[in-house]
């Protein structure tokens, strides 16, 4: 398992071709994406690297069906996401995608368990919320409210919430961005474990090059374009990372 299967078109989960995204703010046009071609495969752990403003979040949001591109095409397995209706995108997110955000975005009035349950209640074949929390090492903090958890713990709840519905894809936008290095490592270990044990395609955004070493594949964005892409011959385990 240390050496992933060679990339194979048959295993492609996401295929993006010629993606562009233009934000219009009055007179000014911001080109957030300028022609992205990208294929993501089953079971991969991919790190999206790039400076702030390079278009990472925009790309991730489009892959996750939270936003629509201005041009180009995205396919998920045999579905075309581009041009899908709001309702189809909702179904897509509901069944296939788990999100983790930089600021956790937990529902403050629900406990850890209930935050996870809020998602599992609308999924088809979810884990038990308790199992998902055990997976992220929070089996003993089930009934704590977000305000009673540290930032790292909140982020782990968010990961549990994202993986509890057994998604095919886990999309994480700077999950360690708001955390110190030691806490961040714990969160990355959880993501690594989920990727390994559940085989979930995991896309992880960071502007921190040190984190890239844990990936199967690293894609570097710059000014809305893919500047560079490489495979790590040796993945470093998350616990060896620091920044």
């Amino acid at each position: 398992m240390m050496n992933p299967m060679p990339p194979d078109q048959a295993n492609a989960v996401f295929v993006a071709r010629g993606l562009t995204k233009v934000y219009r703010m009055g007179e000014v046009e911001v080109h957030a994406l300028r022609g992205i071609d990208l294929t993501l495969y089953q079971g991969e752990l991919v790190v999206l690297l790039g400076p702030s403003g390079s278009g990472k979040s925009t790309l991730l949001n489009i892959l996750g069906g939270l936003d629509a591109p201005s041009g180009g095409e995205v396919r998920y397995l045999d579905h075309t996401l581009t041009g899908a209706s709001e309702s189809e995108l909702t179904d897509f997110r509901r069944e296939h995608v788990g999100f983790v955000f930089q600021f956790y975005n937990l529902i403050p009035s629900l406990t850890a368990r209930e935050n996870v349950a809020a998602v599992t209640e609308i999924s088809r074949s979810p884990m038990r919320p308790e199992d998902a929390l055990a997976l992220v090492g929070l089996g003993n903090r089930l009934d704590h409210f977000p305000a009673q958890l540290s930032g790292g713990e909140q982020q782990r709840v968010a990961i549990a919430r994202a993986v509890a519905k057994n998604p095919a894809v886990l999309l994480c936008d700077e999950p360690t961005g708001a955390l110190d290095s030691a806490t961040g490592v714990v969160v990355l270990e959880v993501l690594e474990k989920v990727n390994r044990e559940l085989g979930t395609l995991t896309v992880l955004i960071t502007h921190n090059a040190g984190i890239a070493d844990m990936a199967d594949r690293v894609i570097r964005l710059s000014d809305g374009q893919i500047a560079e892409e490489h495979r790590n011959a040796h993945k470093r385990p998350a616990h060896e990372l620091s920044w």
Partner: protein
Amino acid sequence: MRALDRKLLRDLWHLRGQVLAIAAVIMGGVATLVMSLSTYDSLGVTRDRFYGEYRFAEVFASLKRAPEPVAERLRALPGVEQLETRVRAGVKLELEGFNDPITGLLLSLPDSGEPLLNALHLKRGGMPQAWSADEVVLSDSFADAHGLQPGDKIAAIINGKRQQLTIAGVAVSPEYIYQIAPGSMFPDFKRYGVLWMGRSALGAAYGMEGAFNQVSLTLARDAREQAVIDRVDAILAPYGGTGAYGRKDQFSNRFLSEELNQLQTTATIFPAIFLGVAAFLLNVVVSRLIALQREQIAILKAFGYRYPAIGWHYVKLVLGMVLLGVAGGVALGAWFGQGLAAVYMETTFRFPYLDYLLNPGIVLVALGVSVVGAVSGTLYSVARAVRLPAAEGMRAEAPEAYRATLIERIGLQRWFGAPTRMILRHIERRPLKSMLTVLGISCACGLMMVGNDQKGAIDFMVDLQFRQAAREDLALTFIEPTSGRALHELAAVPGVGYVEGFRDVPAILRFGHYHYRSAIFGIEPEGQLHRSLDHDYQPVAVPPGGVVLTDHLARNILHVEPGDMLTVEVLEGSRPVLQVPVLGITQQFLGLSAYMQKDSLNALMREGHVVTGAYLAIEPGAEEAVYAKLNARPRVLGMVANRSAIQSFYETIGEFILFYNLVATLLAGSIGFGVVYNSARIALSERGRELASLRVLGFTRGEIAYILLGELALLTLAAIPVGFLVGTGLVGILVLAFESDLYRLPLVLTPQNYAMGATVVIVSALLSGLLMWLRLGRLDLVAVLKTRE
């Protein structure tokens, strides 16, 4: 329980301050509706039951005198079911220790047994002994006003002879629920009473043995009222009949119906204003509250929740608040409703009992309106939040594009420090939201003004009536039309300063298919005491040869204009039918009148200088002597003293107004506080992070309070003048809706009105400000550092 439902309960608890404030807004609107409509329904139901149980007659007729056998012919008429004849006599009453003139009405009872129709509900004591010569039953309002009990004595001057009567019982009659002395404007329980006495005793005293002068009857199942009236009139005409009439024209019933109509208007318009405003405020408050949840909505959406599910979630949240408010409003409204009905029963409707009725339909209406107001606001906000791409919803709102405000751009900025600029820019950045806040607060101000309007309007009305139109100290009625020479005799009474005669002819006024049963008043054209007023409330002379009508009578009842020809069916003497032109309109808020020049009326009636009564000015201090002197004159039927009438009016209505104002103040106050508090609380939620950041930067609590509360203060101050406009508009609506035969409300707003409106807003703002100040002390600075930005 599902996780989201749990979130709901916790959110409700977390927002409890706002939940209560929103519930208060709904409660204010719903309570007004429930109070007014349940009172209206209850009084109507009670009236119907009382009429039924006490056999209130359906057709009535008065005449001069007919021998008893005539009754047999009436009974035999088709369409008549039950019929009863009576003797009816106007009397003057005297009570030890009470010196104002008292007018009374004596009605006969069967010498033994119950009356067939118009039965009495005894409250105390019993019916007179069979064939008793001096026992009477007294109307309860009069008895209560003087504290009279069974066994007490009262003197009556019947047909010029003074007679000592013993009170056997105190009772209520369906015929005299609303008691007004002839020639008076409003009920005066102290100076007008109705008495019932055995038929032979009264007949003997009044010279009506073996005869009658009043008939009441009920109709057979499918009889046509007008047909029966015509037949009765035909039989009674030779006996001086003055025209039979149905319940619609029966005095007490007509006024009762008018009062109930009035109440229905109040019960519809007033709550419509209150509930409408409450629903609007609810909408504004709820949509802002939900807008604050935009981040959570984005998360739910990112995880695949759909609009209907998210919408329903927030609708449930808001329904929680609505149900709380509606339940509280119904309970409070029912409580107030019983209180209001009790006040009505004491002051106006002398029913012996009350069937309090809260129609479930009212509760449904209250619930429906509140739910629509709240749910539409919720769905609007949720839809907006959902429409936002989830990616954007979750991102902190982009820093808003502030800019220098107009005030700064025109160069006034050097007068303002940074905090003041923040306030101004924040208001200008969100002009719509600021406007809605101002509008919401101003509605609360307007409601308060409506709620407190009556007092000023009634003061104005009474002042106009008694200082401009009816300035006499005493209005005196003769037993029958009398020669004008009687006026000289009155003027000669020591203490009488000035005398003005009037001729009053009972008549039905007709125009097209409209009619009104009342009287034509012949007054002196250039009278000093009793005058007709023009549109600017200035006295104008009544022109010769035609009638001048009260505007409401002309416009809304008869639908005539000056120049039209009115048909006047005179109800006395040879009962001529006359054509009289309408010459003008007079402005009058109390009652309805048709005025003519006295000489013109005399000419029309083909009689000489005849009067039926007189208006007197009495020298100060001479009142009692004059009353005593005139009371003793046999030709004087009754007297109404204006000053005491006004006083008693205020005593009666005072209690009513006190209750109503208290309730309206309470409800408008709760709505006002709910709105202001919510505006402040939401502003705090919207800007909490910003304010906490400022605290982190070293601003003091006072400084950030200035930024938050300064904005609230500015909006509150802006809302007060707008509120005055809203209040004036609402009062205008009320005035339009309030036209009735009894009175029309003038559009009058007193300084107190404005002060009340402003006070509710300012007090609510101060209280909310205090609560916000306490909250600012608990602002979580660490949380700000922990999260974004």
